[in-house]
């Protein structure tokens, strides 16, 4: 195992998501692809922040924790923001999917031919 292995697995997960977005015809599958890619990006941030043998970035009143032993707290804060943004995007796309299903009676994007590129 080399030192970059988790990053590579995480990027593979990202690519699976993007692949679903690009190649699937079903609206729900496309949304799932975006969700998976989002997960991968969030995971990547946390992987970048991890310090081998580090501790969670929370001080305790009962126990002394050395600040130098903590993992990088900045990406954790960024992930929290990014998770919320992901939820917002997902919820909005689900609303669109429900409406589109109501209009067309299908999730198949190739059967929605109102727009030409």
């Amino acid at each position, binding site marked *: 195992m080399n030192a970059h292995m988790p990053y590579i697995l995480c990027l593979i997960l990202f690519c699976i998501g993007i692949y679903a977005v690009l190649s699937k015809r079903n609206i729900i*599958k496309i949304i799932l692809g975006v969700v998976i890619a989002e997960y991968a990006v969030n995971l990547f941030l946390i992987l970048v922040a991890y310090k081998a043998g580090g501790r969670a970035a929370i001080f305790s009143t009962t126990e002394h924790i050395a600040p130098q032993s903590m993992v990088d707290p900045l990406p954790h804060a960024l992930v929290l923001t990014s998770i919320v943004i*992901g939820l917002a995007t997902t919820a909005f796309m689900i609303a669109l999917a429900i409406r589109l299903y109501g209009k067309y009676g299908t999730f198949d994007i190739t059967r929605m031919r109102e727009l030409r590129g």
Partner: protein
Amino acid sequence: MIELYVLLGLMIAGAIIAIEVRNLLSAVVAVGIVGLGLSIIFLLLKAPDVAITQIVVEIAAVILLIRATLHRDIATKPCSSRPFGGFMAVLFLGLAVVAGILTFDGGLNPFGEPLMTVSEFYPLNAVAGTGATNVVTSVILDYRAYDTLGEATVLFTAVVGVLTVMRSRGRTKEEDLQENHE
């Protein structure tokens, strides 16, 4: 860190199942498993704040997704890939490999050794500077509170957006709707 690799493998398998399985409900459940694995990885990597948030968001997202798929053409059609799908798959797997090779180049730090230039500051000064013992909270609500304002705004925007697209009538005069025009 063997459990990390096991979980990552599980997530990749779950993701592949989610996008390839015929039944939409199963696909949503598979994505739920991927999200669950993600939140366990967050715990393993010492990010409890993120793990809690991830798991509650996961539940909310899966409820919404199940709602969207319930009782609607559950099984997708057999040939459910666009014609250039295979090409894209090759392209993106190629990109993944390229990205992997690139990470050896010395730009990205090895796993487990973050380059803490700015973030060194936070654990050392957060309690004195902000009074919060949870350093992550001190970052999101004090050092980077402006980001959190943006984040709250994004969710607000999404709520108004959902209300907007769920209106049954968009226009005051229905004849304006050029649905069957041309």
